[in-house]
């Protein structure tokens, strides 16, 4: 395959062009959105797999757009660090899309925004140019604002506007940073910048640029105290959309920040820069603690998981701090694994939460009572995901944390290791609360005003669908359906076997990735030796 570099522009251009199709075809035919989106995302996933197989056998793939040299042209690069992110983006996009066929929001405009988001995220992960990174960040953000605002009720519009204002400021901060760096060096290409930055005549411009970039990404990645947009955005977004944006949008931004640190500014230069490492470390560590502490006190499941994201991304940023301060390869491996692993975990958890809401209307932790009896498979998958999030060994959450903590200890940065330990305890606190409700709280007789009546036939013929179990046991078993807020719209029948299967696949993937941690580290090796001496 000599033309494998053509995959890079195709991965970005195809979803963005395909985004126009649902609306254009929708003028004439109904229900074209889902097939178009399904074909596109499946194709993208296949392309990302093909790309990954090339990257991990032959090294990085570069495509120069229009054939212009990189000094003033634009490059797309896939290397060992960006390929896992591209795989995660396409994989989660395909999985969540399969879920939305039955469960999620529908309509052609939804699929347009969905494909636009996927294209923007792939752009972030594959671009080799700092200004293009800004453009793709904004494409992603625009699609995210639209998706958040498509939730039911006016609250979602307020959450989206808040996100829009903060997100725009963040992207603008990043653009100012790019302006300063461009002023000092005169180039925008990441590889060119890496050699131009240490040679810059006025390092103060570079420092100012880095400071603006840190602030911009702290908002985009939702770091404390700049995280306030995120819980309301995740909570108000439609249930089928939250898994996608929670798993991918901040992950892609965090990846971009890491890319800037290791490839553009380079670890050695940043280590010599006064206060760069302490600031990144502090932002990360404080976010870890603040995020978990806030997650513990939440009563709504989606909000709790959103605050948990604040803390998990804090871990990644803290790992970047360790990379800068300690020149640590191990911490970078940890950050990469945690980015991918957390993306998968959050996608699965939010899908699980969406599934429970779709079937019982349950949104708060208390309403999850007795879920294990009513939906053993979904509850089991969610339990695996939650334990993996805490960091119980076979799960991927453990591997990421392990590498980050190991890197911190190797670099003698003990506070980070302590913070990781403490946050694990706190993560256990909120995960255990949910597990306890699902498995161990005896169901109490709570009035169920809107619950569906058990069907007369008892539905016992086709035993394949999980919802049958639910129907037959509806009278005597726990009331996960205790409070149905949505006026009886949610019924156990709203959940298909396919929707449950996707959550289970996410859980299995999280465990499998946990076992593959060592392989993953080996695959990253060529990249690490290149950027860290």
């Amino acid at each position, binding site marked *: 395959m000599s033309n494998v570099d053509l995959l890079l522009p195709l991965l970005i251009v195809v979803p963005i062009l395909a985004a126009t199709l649902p609306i254009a075809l929708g003028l004439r035919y109904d229900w074209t959105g889902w097939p178009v989106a399904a074909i596109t995302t499946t194709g993208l996933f296949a392309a990302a797999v093909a790309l990954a197989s090339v990257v991990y056998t032959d090294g990085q793939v570069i495509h120069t757009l229009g054939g212009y040299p990189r000094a003033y042209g634009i490059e797309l690069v896939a290397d060992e660090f960006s390929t896992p992110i591209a795989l995660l983006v396409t994989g989660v996009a395909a999985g969540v899309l399969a879920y939305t066929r039955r469960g999620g929001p529908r309509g052609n405009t939804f699929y347009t925004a969905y494909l636009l988001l996927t294209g923007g995220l792939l752009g972030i992960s594959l671009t080799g140019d700092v200004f293009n990174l*800004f453009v793709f960040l904004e494409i992603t953000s625009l699609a995210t604002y639209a998706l958040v605002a498509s939730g039911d009720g006016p609250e979602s519009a*307020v959450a989206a506007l808040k996100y829009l204002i903060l997100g*725009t*400021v963040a992207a*603008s901060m990043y653009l100012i940073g790019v302006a300063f760096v461009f*002023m000092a060096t005169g180039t925008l290409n990441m590889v060119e910048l890496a050699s131009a930055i240490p040679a810059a005549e006025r390092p103060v411009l570079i420092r100012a640029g880095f400071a603006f970039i840190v602030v911009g990404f702290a908002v985009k990645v939702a770091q404390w105290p700049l995280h306030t947009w995120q819980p309301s955005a995740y909570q108000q977004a439609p249930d089928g959309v939250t898994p996608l944006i929670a798993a991918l949008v901040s992950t892609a931004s965090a990846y971009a920040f890491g890319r800037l640190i290791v490839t553009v500014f380079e670890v050695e230069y940043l280590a010599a820069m006064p206060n760069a490492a302490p600031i990144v470390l502090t932002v990360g560590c404080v976010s870890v603690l603040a995020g978990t502490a806030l997650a513990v006190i939440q009563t709504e499941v989606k909000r709790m998981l959103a605050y948990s994201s604040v803390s998990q991304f804090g871990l990644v940023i803290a790992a970047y701090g360790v990379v800068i301060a300690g020149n640590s390869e191990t911490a970078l491996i940890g950050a990469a694994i945690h980015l991918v692993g957390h993306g998968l975990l959050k996608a699965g958890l939010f899908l699980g939460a969406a599934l429970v809401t779709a079937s019982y209307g349950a949104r708060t932790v208390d309403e999850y009572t007795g879920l294990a009896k009513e939906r053993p498979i979904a509850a089991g998958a969610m339990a695996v995901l939650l334990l993996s999030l805490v960091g119980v060994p076979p799960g991927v959450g453990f591997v990421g944390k392990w590498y980050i903590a190991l890197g911190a200890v190797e670099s003698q940065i003990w506070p980070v290791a302590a913070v990781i330990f403490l946050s694990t305890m706190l993560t256990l606190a909120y995960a255990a609360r949910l597990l306890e409700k699902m498995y161990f709280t005896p169901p109490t007789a709570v009035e169920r005003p809107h619950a569906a009546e058990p069907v007369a036939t008892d539905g016992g013929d086709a035993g394949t669908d999980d919802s049958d179990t639910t129907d037959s046991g509806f009278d005597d078993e726990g009331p996960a359906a205790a409070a149905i807020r949505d006026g009886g719209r949610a019924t156990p029948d709203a959940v298909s076997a396919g929707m449950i299967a996707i959550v289970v696949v996410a859980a299995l993937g999280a465990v499998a990735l946990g076992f593959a941690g060592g392989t993953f580290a080996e695959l990253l090796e060529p990249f690490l030796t290149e950027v860290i001496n």
Partner: protein
Amino acid sequence: MIELLASRYTYALLFVLLGVGLYMMIANENLVKKLIGVNLFQTAIFLFFISMAYVEGGAAPIVPHEENPGEVLVASPLPQVIVLTAIVVGIALTAVGLALIIRIYSEYGTLREDTLREVRSDE
């Protein structure tokens, strides 16, 4: 200091504009004005890029092909291209923001953030 300001006054002015935009975004209760603040903030950045590319005595970056091009002093075209792209992004953002504001207005009947907060806490 004075000398610096005299030679770099555009940068100083642009960062004042940036501050005005930021202040407007934070302090103004009206949602539309907040969005105008966002626009001011972005515009300041665009102008920063443009003034950065300014070359004393430089011509527009259109190189006449009869003369020897190496000797022509031109402004760098790259920041201007960047700003064109960024303006497009900014317009798209403003459009989405205004659409959201229209939705909020039709649902809550107010554009003021403080009133909005009261209405939402009542629910």
